[in-house]
């Protein structure tokens, strides 16, 4: 027959029995104290009183406890410790009875464990530890050269990591993030950006069309845009403007934001998905992320635009920046930014410009607007050391698991 400590037994082994607590308190109070004084001080005071009295260590007079004799040792505590260590043969039978009565130990059968004695086992179990039987078995030595099973960490997608870095960087520059619908009205994607109704970038090889027409919610803006198109291009096709498409540039988000400005100055950015028909290969896909931003405020000029671009270029990790003239239908002047990257040389980093007044005025904005866009896919490939954009939407779990981010 074997004995193990109950939960309470374990606790007292650790903290000391209540009667020990009681005697120690009495000594502190000079040998006598009111019960009420100790009630909050000693846990399970009543148990302590019961056993101290039984052993003749104290007397109770009315509500007062009086120390009669101080015990030399607390046999039950010693017994608990021995039982814990598995040295049951060193414990007096009477004490075992008392401990059983006090529910500080309980009987257990160890037949199945006894079978293990002197044998080599593989797993150390909670029971072996609790019963002390671990001393009577041999734990098998492992072959430390056996390779472990693979462990797969939970990880961010590397592309998301780059995107989040860009996001944080722009927020630190004071840009506020905006969103817009993936299914867009051609109006916000093209017309509001001064692209004439017959612009070649509005044809089927540059835009995905979907069925249906959008609603005109900002009649004022639609009327302004119609006027400017008729004045500058000589015509405007409203039915075309109403067509629904998949957003082909995040400048559509900028246009919506400009039509709904509530504060000045303001810096706004968007990092989001756009869609364009294209051949699908290592360099092209029909969906990609675009990062675009605007700075809206009084007295902004071309030199400020270049100033922001030089700041934003830092995300590419290049030290030198170069600017070159460029063309976008909605900006004038327009500029293309190149960043010098170690080993690669000059890399095209993005386009920018000051929005034309033909764009800003119809949207109700009468201050300069600096606009820029980053080649986010290119940036991600650069940062990840890849040359195939298909990795960005990769279906390859092995690669995702192994790539260091």
């Amino acid at each position: 027959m074997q004995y193990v400590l109950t939960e309470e037994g374990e606790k007292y082994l650790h903290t000391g029995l209540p009667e020990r607590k009681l005697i120690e308190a009495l000594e502190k109070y000079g040998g006598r104290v009111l019960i009420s004084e100790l009630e909050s001080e000693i846990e399970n005071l009543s148990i302590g009183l019961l056993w101290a009295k039984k052993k003749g260590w104290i007397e109770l007079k009315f509500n007062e406890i009086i120390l009669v004799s101080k015990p030399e040792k607390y046999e039950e505590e010693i017994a608990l410790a021995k039982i814990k260590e598995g040295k049951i043969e060193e414990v007096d039978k009477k004490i075992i009875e008392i401990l059983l009565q006090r529910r500080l130990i309980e009987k257990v059968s160890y037949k199945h464990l006894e079978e293990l004695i002197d044998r080599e086992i593989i797993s150390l179990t909670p029971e072996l530890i609790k019963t002390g039987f671990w001393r009577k078995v041999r734990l098998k030595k492992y072959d430390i050269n056996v390779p472990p099973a693979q462990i797969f960490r939970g990880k961010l997608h590397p592309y998301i990591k780059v995107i989040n870095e860009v996001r944080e960087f722009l927020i630190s520059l004071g840009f506020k993030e905006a969103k817009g619908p993936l299914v867009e009205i051609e109006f916000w994607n093209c017309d509001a950006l001064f692209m004439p109704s017959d612009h070649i970038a509005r044809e089927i090889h540059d835009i995905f069309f979907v069925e249906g027409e959008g609603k005109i919610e900002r009649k004022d803006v639609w009327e302004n845009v119609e006027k400017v198109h008729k004045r500058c291009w000589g015509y405007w096709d409203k039915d075309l403007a109403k067509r629904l498409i998949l957003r082909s540039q995040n400048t559509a988000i900028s246009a919506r934001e400009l039509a709904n400005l509530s504060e000045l100055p303001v810096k706004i950015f968007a990092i989001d998905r756009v869609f364009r028909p294209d051949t699908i290969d290592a360099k092209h896909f029909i969906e990609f992320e675009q990062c675009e931003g605007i700075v809206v405020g009084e007295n902004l000029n071309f030199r400020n635009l270049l100033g922001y671009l030089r700041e934003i270029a830092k995300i590419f990790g290049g030290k030198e920046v170069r600017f070159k003239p460029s063309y976008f239908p909605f900006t004038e002047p327009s500029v293309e930014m190149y960043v010098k990257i170690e080993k690669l040389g000059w890399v095209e980093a993005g386009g920018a410009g000051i929005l034309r007044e033909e764009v800003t005025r119809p949207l109700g904005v009468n201050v300069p607007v600096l606009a820029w866009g980053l080649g986010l896919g290119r940036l991600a490939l650069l940062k990840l050391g890849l040359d195939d954009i298909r990795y960005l939407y990769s279906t390859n779990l092995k690669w995702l698991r192994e790539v260091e981010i």
Partner: protein
Amino acid sequence: MPTVMFNKKELLSFVGKEIKDSELVRIIEALKPSVEEIDEENIVLELTSDRIDYFTVEGLARAIRSYIGLKNPKLSVSKPRITIWKENVPVRPYIGCAIVRNTKLNDSFIKSLMNLQEIIHETYGRKRKKVAVGLHDFDKIYGTIRYVGANRDERFIPLGESKEMSLIEVLAKTEKGKMYGNLIYNSNKWPVFVDEKGIFSFPPILNSERTKITEKTKNIFIDVTGIDRQAVQKVLNLFCLVFIERGCRIESIKIKGESVEITPNFSENVFELSLSEIERILGLRLGERQIISLLKKMDYEAKEVKGKIIVVVKPYRFDIISKSDIIEDIAIAYNYDNFDPYLPNLFTKGEIHPIERVSNKIRELLIGFGFQEIVRPILTNSKTQFEKMNIAIQDTIKILNPVSEHYTELRCWLLPSVIEFLSYNTKEAYPQKVFEIGDVVIRDESAETRSRNIRKVSGAIADNGSFYAEIKKIVVELAKVLNKEIRFEEVEHPSFISGRVSRVIENDREIGIFGEINPIVLENFKIYMPVAAFEFSLE
């Protein structure tokens, strides 16, 4: 953006000066094009669509010449000697014509002209709809020229053919007729130029074999037709520019219709700039003299009148719409490299979009659970998101002009993207725990765009065993992180095993679903491993 290749020697002979490669690249790039390649023979440029004049070696040479301070030939035109009678042809109402005298055509010249013609047709001409150009041997044209609406059975010998064809046959049988016939087909009368001998041009489809241009051609008749008066004029001007640069003389033509017009019209397009608006846009304080010399570098004529700069724009500049276009040219002449960038003192508060903040929180949670993030296209197809998922096909947003059968519509739920991902990785070690956070799009007739994005998260565990409880635990944690009070509700969903699927409800609204994937779905995706998965809305 379009790419063109020029013969370097030819370009430099037009410029009229030897220029070292490095210097040539610097000049051209400062003028806007990007130099893709340069070698002994050729130079390859990437051009922007605003400067159509750069598409010709003559136009680019002219720009370089003014940029480096050489003199440009004057754009002049002599008085009309010839009159064209013009009927009203509603399908193509505008024409512009000119005669080029003293042409010395050679192979490269003809190639250059054909090249320009093609570029104009493809880009600015909107595939010949807006503008089309024809060039003819003027000496093969006899008597009075008229622009008239013809019946479809009238006949001529089209370019490249040996026999007469009726106009309708030209549309039906020739390559160009098939390509561009739709531009005029629905009209009663089709546009043609005729002389004594009959039709010699059938715009915007084909010229005639009779008036075809050869190296022997001495005088050229240009016909430009279209539906936009200004565009027709500008294209004619650009062709005239090329001929003038080649040393030819342009003779104008009187066009008599409802009114009388003389083309080409090099009349001046004048803008008035003030120093302050240039400073406001560029952030540069430039003097009048400096501005005038910068403008001259960009081939403008400019002078100062009472503190204002009067700018005359060349007739072939299609892209100058307002002052800002000219101010950009001032910046280009000043050279972008010479601008000193500076950040204005403009304090604003940066902020992440709330849905991205939530998305990042969820990423953190799922990575803690050992999930690998994936990113998939939003475009998908019906087969993947409905059929293979064992559910009825739903009304989703479809593309009218898809480029691949794999990507024909927008995903309206996220789970198929995750399951499809697993199907690509059946050879990779299990357990596989993956998730995606991304947008789906659903119809919403009340919205401005008749649809709405919804940010969702979906994840799956593929492993030998039952992971329903594990997935449920994750859903409970998701709700905790999102501060949502949820309850679970029994549901039948054919993508999941009956009795092992639950809806997630918040305030009587379904915001998610999870359970063990139906083996039918696993079979459809050829995944031979049990999968438990969830999809959850983050909005």
